[in-house]
């Protein structure tokens, strides 16, 4: 029983990590309708930036969250403006090629600059574990959990109450109708892509104390993030959050009760079942909206 509770706790915390990454992916997919194959590499860039700020200026990773979120926002906006925008009229798979190309380029750029060595930031305070009732949690994981909650709540508030949020929702629902209503759709796209990338910026600041960064670190997280996004219904932020929690818990439980090397099998099996029985995802808006 003890182990079970520990595994569930662990799964929730793991889930919140996936949630922050997946929410960004969902935003970009849901609004701009581009599958961001370079999402993991954005994370990698963010983590190197956190490392550089910590190593050169002594910034605590959580402090760097502010500049990194701005940096990643800018990076996302630039990618949208200069890579995706010119391809908006083109076939969807051209956009995919562009993003995959960008991802490969970023990985190799990191290899060129930093080499294959791993870099880490030493923050013992974040890695402190707190024990209660025989269960252990890391402070860093707890912070991640609350940040994930705050992020989803904040985005919800933003989308529902601000004019910009309304314009974004309108664009996501119907691009042409939004255009007719005077929404500057291309600007909305740039902003939304930036927002999605900014979520990754937040994720990188939160992840850096827990994981060392290497050029391929993105691939560790992003495959799972794709599963989460599909599970959550592609365009639903809340779906992504719930999907992340489910995957986190499944990951944790199956790693223990089945076998650590089979946990991917378990959640990909769930993934396939969902695609078969509910192709629009758990929280999808119905057929045709994906």
């Amino acid at each position, binding site marked *: 029983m003890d*182990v079970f509770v*520990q595994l569930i706790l662990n799964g929730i915390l793991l889930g919140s990590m996936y949630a922050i990454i997946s929410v960004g992916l969902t935003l970009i997919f849901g609004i701009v309708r581009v599958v961001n194959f370079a999402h993991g590499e954005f994370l990698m860039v963010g983590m190197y930036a956190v490392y550089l700020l910590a190593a050169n200026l002594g910034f605590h990773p959580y402090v760097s969250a502010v500049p990194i979120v701005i940096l990643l926002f800018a990076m996302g906006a630039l990618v949208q403006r200069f890579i995706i925008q010119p391809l908006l009229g083109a076939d969807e798979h051209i956009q995919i090629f562009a993003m995959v190309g960008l991802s490969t380029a970023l990985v190799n750029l990191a290899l060129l600059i930093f080499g294959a060595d*791993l870099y*880490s930031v030493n923050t013992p305070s974040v*890695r402190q574990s707190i024990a209660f009732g025989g269960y252990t949690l890391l402070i860093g994981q707890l912070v991640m959990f609350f940040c994930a909650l705050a992020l989803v709540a904040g985005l919800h508030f933003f989308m529902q109450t601000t004019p910009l949020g309304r314009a974004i929702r309108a664009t996501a629902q119907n691009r042409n109708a939004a255009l007719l209503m005077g929404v500057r759709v291309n600007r909305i796209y740039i902003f939304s892509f930036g927002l999605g990338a900014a979520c990754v910026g937040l994720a990188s600041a939160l992840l850096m104390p827990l994981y060392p960064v*290497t050029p391929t*670190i993105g691939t560790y997280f992003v495959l799972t993030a794709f599963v989460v996004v599909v599970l959550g219904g592609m365009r639903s932020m809340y779906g992504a959050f719930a999907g992340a929690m489910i995957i986190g818990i499944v990951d*944790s439980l199956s790693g223990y009760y089945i*076998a650590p090397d089979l946990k991917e099998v378990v959640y990909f099996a769930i993934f396939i079942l969902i695609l078969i029985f509910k192709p629009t995802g758990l929280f999808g808006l119905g057929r045709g909206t994906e």
Partner: protein
Amino acid sequence: MKLFAKVALATTLALSAAPALAQETVKIGALYPFSGGLALLGDESFRGLELAVEERNAKGGLNGKPIQMIRGDAVDPNQAVGEARRLTSVDKVNAIFGTYSSSLAIAATQVAELAGVPYFELGAISDPITERGFQYTFRTNPTSKDFANRMVDAISDAVAPALGVDPKSLKVGIIHEDSLYGQTVAGFQQKRAQEKGLNLVETLPYSAKSVDLTPVILRLKSAGVDVVLQTSYQNDTVLFFRQMKDQGFKPKAVIGAGGGYSLRDTVQAVGPENMEGALNVDFTQYRTNPAAAPGIDAFEKKYQAKYGTPPRSGHSLANYMGANVFLDAMASAKDLSADAIREAVMKVDVPEGTTPTGWGAKFNEQGQNTRVSPFLMQWQGGELVTVFPEKAAVAKLKTGVGAN
């Protein structure tokens, strides 16, 4: 026209035969990954060969003939094949030395075998390289089986005595990343543990790209594992040590199979105090007692003098040792034909504890060196020091892992 063709043919033949007659140097190929992702340790490996060759040339070469090294850059298996072809057919080398990476070695040795050129492997550890019945492939360094056996043997020969307990009373857990590397080593470990009658309670594969090893650690913890054997890369090593601490799992010993365990970056990322006491089996490193590895200190000095830095890993030393063994064999061969070299290699008989790596040399029919067993090392105070066998040790084995 016919006459012209004949003359032309004769001239070509004469021309192509001429360099062979005029050959005054011994040509050897140096096939390593000099660029690409494997370049760092590929180059480090090459430096060992380079030092061995320069040393010999300074002493007058191989039986009076200077040795000429021709580099081949093997970035990936395809290019390894291409470069091996070039070395054997265009440059017509007498032998090829290489390769550091197992996948490169497997590809390149096939070319050399077909061309009938001896291939001396000094650093790749995959077992099948010398299990394919090749005539002209020889290897000095230990294989993954030797690594696995040393790790398992360390439990009964080193860890149990240090704890003062019966080895059979220790619960052993094997964890490994689930690619070919981890699978192979873990397979040999399981077999050896069975032979030795050890109490193996868990064998847990995991993906090296795992972002959470807590389930693995909790499994080990609930099984009450005393000794963990881990075969891993770098990220998963870091994650394992960090999360082991988070979960308060305190085994009596953790033994790694080189890979992520040997790298200073790993220790830096984990924190030296958290990796204190981690055991490791790998190629001979520099904190080894020269009594068991005569010449290791001289090599280190020579390396420093030539390259201006201390050796970056044990790869250069392993290549240096292997190159010397094979160059000696070539020197004693009656000529430099492949068969004469094979005959000479089969006669090699170097006892253990007489080379800079501490390994001996005696080759089986398959060309594998049978007198190699890697040393057991331990992270102590941020340094990787040899702790077993006793003769090679520079420090005493400590039990426990991390700051507990």
